[in-house]
């Protein structure tokens, strides 16, 4: 099976973020970008499928600027992905999900992809649009919030479940198709030190933005532009309560929840 996994560099969870001085987007200066948990799960799933289906190959694609995109692709190689493709983004307007999807769909013409895997959503903006948009432009079926993905070795089709509000759906789908996975139902592996060292020397296929934009023409232009980017307001201080017994502490908390926080009637 030819598996293509979509990954995205996102700020490390512990990074202290700030807005750019023009207030339109995140200031990437000094921010450390990593592979998000959703994407780690997707890579893990791809590697498990490869192990279950001999002869399979796993390839990863990422859209974004240097050097962060190269770094997450190297992280994917260190985890065991066979080949990676870096689709370079423009300096500005790279956040429009339509542009991301069209650029990646363009790149997928060169990357075999019977199964296209993505995380449920990106670890940063959590939009969850790109996998579906690519599937749409490639004209293949797509499924979201997927768990328990397996290949049926007899028929070669995929079986999986979708957990919905109402219950659990069981599906069988033939290839090709696109699947956005629910996070971390698998336990993503950790890259081993020798593989980290090897990944530094492996090639990365790069598709320059000039080439992408020339091929897409008008479709390379963003149809949406973010106007303002603000961080959530700083949390104000916690309220410390004085108490002599656990009962007293509980009573005080209930009273405060009712009278001050007004979470109880």
């Amino acid at each position, binding site marked *: 099976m030819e598996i293509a996994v979509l990954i995205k560099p996102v700020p490390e969870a512990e990074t202290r973020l700030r807005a750019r001085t023009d207030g339109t987007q995140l200031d990437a200066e000094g921010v450390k970008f990593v592979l998000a948990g959703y994407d780690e799960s997707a890579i893990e799933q791809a590697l498990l499928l490869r192990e279950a289906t001999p002869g399979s190959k796993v390839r990863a694609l990422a859209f974004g600027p240097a050097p962060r995109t190269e770094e997450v692709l*190297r992280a994917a190689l260190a985890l065991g992905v066979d080949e990676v493709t870096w689709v370079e983004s423009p300096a500005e307007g790279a956040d429009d999900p339509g542009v991301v999807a069209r650029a990646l769909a363009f790149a997928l013409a060169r990357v075999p992809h019977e199964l296209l895997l993505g995380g449920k959503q990106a670890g940063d903006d959590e939009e969850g649009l790109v996998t579906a948009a690519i599937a749409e432009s490639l004209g293949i079926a797509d499924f979201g919030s997927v768990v328990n993905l397996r290949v049926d070795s007899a028929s070669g089709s995929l079986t999986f479940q979708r957990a919905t509000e109402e219950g659990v759906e069981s599906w069988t789908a033939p290839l090709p198709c696109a699947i956005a996975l629910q996070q971390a139902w698998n336990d993503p592996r950790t890259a*081993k030190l020798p593989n980290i060292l090897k990944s530094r020397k492996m090639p990365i296929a790069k598709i320059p933005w000039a080439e992408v934009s020339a091929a897409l023409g008008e479709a390379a232009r963003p149809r949406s532009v973010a106007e303002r980017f603000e961080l959530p307001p700083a949390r104000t201080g916690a309220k410390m309560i004085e108490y002599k017994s656990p009962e007293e502490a509980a009573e005080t908390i209930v009273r405060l929840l009712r009278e001050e926080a007004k979470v109880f009637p």
Partner: protein
Amino acid sequence: MPDFSLTPEQESLRDLARKFARTEMAPHAAECDKAGRFPEEIYRRGWELGLMNLNVPTEYGGSGLSVMDQCLIVEELAQGCGGMTTSIIANCLALEPIILGGTAEQRAQWLTPFCAEYHLASFCLTEPGGGSDAGALKTRARKEGDHYVLDGEKCFITNAPHASLYTVFATIDPQLGHKGITAFIVPRDTPGVAPGKDEDKMGHRASSTSTVHFEGVRVPVANRLGAEGEGFLMAMRTLDQTRTPIGALATGIGQAALDHAAKYALGRRSFGKPIAEHQAIQIKLANMVQSIRAARLLTWQAAVTIDRGERGSLESAIAKCYASDAAMHVADDAIQIFGGYGYMKEYPVEKLLRDAKLTQIYEGANEIQRIVISKELLRAYA
């Protein structure tokens, strides 16, 4: 250097060690410390991830990392647990004499199994009669045909009860002083080799330390490292390689103490405000961070010096000595910032003081480091 930024490769190595320290070491640190448990499953996992045998050249299946890269990894591991780190890096110490002094056949024979499978090795230099004066060691090696027969006792040997291989320093003739010392590779299953019981230690309680007895232990001549009498220099050159990562280990303990102390100072209140707003606490924190950063930079400087191919005895002595003293002061200050809670075993900082203490003693006590440092210093003025 002196461009203090790390390469992307170094950052990924450090990230791996940090992840392992946080997710697999730290959660068990308190329990292993309390029980004095040797968490072999964690060491195995560290081995699987390639975090052991960092100094073994790639041709034998190791990572062949520079001392600088080793230091980046060791500092992170030490933030997870100092004792576990001591046990994880003990293989580097035990295998270094083979890397430095082994023939091509010896290296292939003895290094490769450690990278192909999980095994522990121990470096056996210290004896009950003395560690600092290694030239006066008493374990005897008598040549009998194509064998040497070893008799004697080593003590304070890291990982000894669990090791499958020992690198042993013994003398062919005590009259020769350090010129008689010779190094041997001794498999654990050789008749007459007997590790003692695990010592009950102040700190590094997740590590295991014991004596090793050698009684009529027959070792083939093929297991001798280098020529007779070359063992002392081999031991000193080994310690020149491994002393700097001890500086990194101490720096990691200090960093952990600072992290705990700063977080606590922001949350703990006295006289109506967080204690972090009292100037006395701020000054303590400022001093702590200065010591840790200086320790880190001295460690990096020693590492880069050695990686350039120089011996780096002076630089590594300064780094190890300074960083271990810094770790002690910083851990002490962290306890002070925690107040009474800092003295309680329920909180993590008293362990850091107990762990920091060892870094002033092993791999050459700090008194010995200061002798080395002042000797070099005075030579420059004489």
